[in-house]
């Protein structure tokens, strides 16, 4: 799965989790750009990403990330590794 595909799948999972409708999610997207993606729903999004990609996110790292792009890079790293 290449980065574009990962990004598209990550966007789909985020949209489904927060039920924000067909909003564009790009590498530059931040939580605050997406309705429903607040600090309280963040953990649920991370869980859905774990389920969707079959990975376990290291919380120490994931909590320091700022953009969807950084999140996708981490997922790619975990999938490769």
């Amino acid at each position: 799965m290449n980065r574009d595909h990962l990004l598209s799948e990550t966007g789909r999972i985020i949209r489904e989790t927060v039920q924000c409708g067909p909003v564009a999610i790009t590498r530059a997207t931040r939580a605050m750009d997406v309705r429903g993606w607040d600090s309280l729903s963040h953990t649920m999004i991370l869980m859905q990403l774990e389920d969707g990609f079959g990975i376990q996110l290291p919380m120490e790292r994931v909590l320091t990330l700022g953009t969807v792009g950084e999140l996708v890079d981490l997922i790619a790293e975990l999938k490769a590794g």
Partner: protein
Amino acid sequence: MNAPPKPRVLVYGNCQGGWLADTLRLQPEVAEQFEIIYLSDYQERPPDHPINESGFLATCSVVIWQTASGCKPPWFLADVPAHVRQIRYPTLWLKLLWPTYAVDPRNVREDQFPWGRYPYGDRLVMKLLEQGVPPADIPRRYADTDLNTIVNLARFTEMSLAELRFNDRQSDLAITPFIESTFRTRKLFGSVNHPTFAILHQIYHGVAAALLNRPPAAAPLFPANADEVLGNEEVPLHPQIIEHFQLSWAFPGMRWRYHSAFLTAEEYFQAYAAFTPIPLGQPPALWLARARQAAEQSDLATAQRLLLEASSHYPAVPEFLQFLGLILTRHGQLLEAEKVFRYAIAQHPRAAALPFELGRLMLQQNFAAEAARLFNDTLRLDPLHKEARRQLILAAGRPRSQPVVAAVR
């Protein structure tokens, strides 16, 4: 001669920060030394807030600000001069008890609901509604759903706690050890981010100690209102959560405050599913219902506090003192109950129920003559009071002699 200005302390954060600023301001040992200024991170900045003055931050000796993963640091942080001390405290939330929290797209700001009707949405309820389940059936379907089909509770708990610890590390005080050791036995939150005063006081102690460079004096670990929630929205827990975490403070049939109502989980989830507006406010019925729940749980201290507070909010309503007298009687505190009823009669001389209840209490203690007088008072206020008439006959049939206990009264 004017006193020299006190060092300024800027407290920045959400409503928890607002409470912290108010509490610091009310503590003489803090207020004597510092001028406390609050700045909200969620409301529009007032045009007259001192932070709008150039050089304001340089006039502060301390900036206290709230940290949280996924939240930006204060917008003014880069302008805080190096000589200004910073104290960071963690944002309080507890996601693990409300794993299905979600923003409900139906929730929008309305004139009477600045945060919307239901700012705490629930993904399971939303999913059931999508499946066409009618709101009336939602509570049962909700309670019957195994949460593990929605979320892996074990992993969610692990992630939630990891996030709390992360927040602690971004702060100058750690709250997670307290949360982990206490959340099963005490109510620390009423919703995912509405803490009770039990946990807020921990934050106050930590911040005040950092500010004063010593532990603050006084203030109990668990204040009288420890189980009260900051804010007026509580969200009932899924029964599986109560069982999973073995929460000793939650119980079946428990009622939760939501705006002006005090609802069971069933009532809440049905109202939320239907998106029924529940007005804001604290009507007398809400106070009475909350006191009743506390009394039913044998929590006399809370019931007493709620009724006295309610009585000061609504001085014209006699039912609070009447109920207080009744629960004191039920707990065998007869002299206290008598005092409450006598005080209540003085405050509400037209309320027939009060001399009636005091009359029953006196009769219970074999003060038949006084009881009879009180039942007569009741009947003067309410000639149709059947029970007073019946009790009057009972009192008249009792011997007039005073019991031995009267001597020690």
